[in-house]
């Protein structure tokens, strides 16, 4: 059971960076960024290529920079070229497949078994300490903590407030002399930097990446985000951001337990879709319930009267 929890924590922490990215784009900016899958893969691909060439530290920065670029294009399409924001994400996502293959040099995967990565570096640093078995968790935890700290500070600056207001009431942003197009661009650049970093870390932790590593990540992250905001949806930003990490962990934990109970691994994506559907539809259906109840009662009353 402990190994299940450990594995869930490792994966949950790494994926939580993508959840935090969606926390910025989806919860704050009110933009559902469907380029997430492609951007996650882009970060993994760039990170892997740079790490294999012998620069583990630089690989993290490069993956984030690639994410910024991808976010910039997505934002440009929707703010300056009049393309619907969902469509902009899908277009970028499709285009990124070719970009990712090009980054990987035409082969669909990269093996990093003998590559020095941030994970292998930390593992060798902690080799003879009691912390040794938890080195992967430590790397993920530090990354998540840094992103939470950054978001907590950033979202309370004037720029951060403008970004939050853009998702809440764009009219009000305009009347505060701020261009909502600008805040959308900045927000998506920052959020995609985290998505890219998330992909980079996952590839390096698993010591291999292939071009499908990001498939379905947006739904998995959205499911984690919805779990997290159900638990810690109110309150100050740091708490809500922490909730995102908790959500990512719970999602992974449930999934890992389901695997133990002999659910086939390929069910992951269906499970994440069902969670997202439930989390988004339940509030709506709850609102519809009183009307439905009244309609049923009305019908049975009419029937009783024999009309």
């Amino acid at each position, binding site marked *: 059971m402990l190994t299940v929890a450990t594995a869930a924590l490792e994966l949950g922490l790494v994926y939580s960076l993508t959840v935090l990215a969606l926390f910025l784009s989806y919860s704050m900016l009110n933009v559902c960024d469907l380029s997430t899958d492609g951007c996650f893969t882009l970060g993994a691909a760039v990170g892997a290529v740079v790490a294999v060439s012998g620069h583990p530290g630089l690989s993290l920065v490069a993956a984030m920079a690639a994410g910024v670029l991808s976010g910039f294009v997505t934002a440009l399409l929707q703010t300056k070229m009049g393309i619907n924001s969902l469509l902009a994400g899908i277009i970028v996502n499709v285009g990124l497949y070719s970009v990712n293959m090009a980054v990987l040099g035409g082969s669909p995967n990269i093996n990093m078994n003998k590559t020095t990565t941030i994970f292998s570096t930390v593992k060798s640093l902690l080799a003879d300490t009691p912390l040794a078995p938890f080195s992967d968790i430590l790397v993920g935890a530090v990354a998540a903590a840094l992103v939470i700290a950054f978001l907590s500070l950033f979202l*309370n*600056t*004037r*720029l951060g*407030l*403008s970004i*939050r*207001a853009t998702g*809440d*009431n764009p*009219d*009000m*942003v*305009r*009347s*505060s*002399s*701020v*261009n*909502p197009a600008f805040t959308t661009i900045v927000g998506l650049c920052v959020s995609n930097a985290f998505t890219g970093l998330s992909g980079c870390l996952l590839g390096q932790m698993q010591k291999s990446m292939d071009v499908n590593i990001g498939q379905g990540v947006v739904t998995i992250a959205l499911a984690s985000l919805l779990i997290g905001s159900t638990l810690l949806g109110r309150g100050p930003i740091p708490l809500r951001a922490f909730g995102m990490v908790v959500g990512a962990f719970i999602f992974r934990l449930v999934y890992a337990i389901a695997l133990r109970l002999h659910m086939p691994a390929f069910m992951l994506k269906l499970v994440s879709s069902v969670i997202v559907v439930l989390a988004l539809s339940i509030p709506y259906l709850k609102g519809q319930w009183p009307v439905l109840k009244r309609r049923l009662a009305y019908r049975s009353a009419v029937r009783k009267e024999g009309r």
Partner: protein
Amino acid sequence: MLELTHVSKTFNPGTVNEKKALIDLSLHLDPGDFVTIIGSNGAGKSTLFNAIAGDFMADSGSIVLDGKDITFLPSHKRSKDIGRLFQDPMRGSAPHMTIEENLALAAGSGGWFSHLTAADRTRFRDQLALLDMGLEDRMRQPVGLLSGGQRQALTLLMATFCPPKLLLLDEHTAALDPATAEKVLAITKSVVEGNRITTLMVTHNMHQALEMGNRTLMMNAGGIVLDVSGEQRAKMTVADLLAQFKLGAGKDLDNDRILLS
């Protein structure tokens, strides 16, 4: 202060839904003018405000504010000098952000990466206390929890926190209950007079149109049909105003929400 010269705007040109919302409209405001505007349904009052605020670019003509040509300036740049309130109290503030966060955005002081300081909070608290609605003790609550009247008062404070050169009030008390409307109107008066802000106010209350401000415009079919100020206005009654409108527009004032008392 504000100079509109031959401004025209047609919506959906060349279609069956073509609507000439503003027709060759010219208007000059002196600094400190407080102008009330009344008019029939679809007369172009809101279109006039949207044109001044930059929601769309006028088809022809020019708009100059305090010596600066703003004809082609996008709305977020105009908003530095133009404050604006709508009929809908929900339009002016961000519901999921706190009162102090909303005010911080409106105050707009400091660079992009500046944080709220203790000095800012004191400043906000003092200003909120002037509204006399108890908002100064709720600065960390989300704006979505406030009533319509409280939100409109807050929006007024936000729009005038850094006194703008021009304030546009588009029936900003129409959606409020009478007592709250009275209060928001009193706050409006003191803020506008205290800072000598040039103001345009659309109202459907004829009495208010004559009582507030120093000049009254009547609009009909995309143009200004009556412009009274000074002595002529001081002596005017609501009945005079209606008669004058009929003379100018060639028909009775047909605003389905008009208040004659």
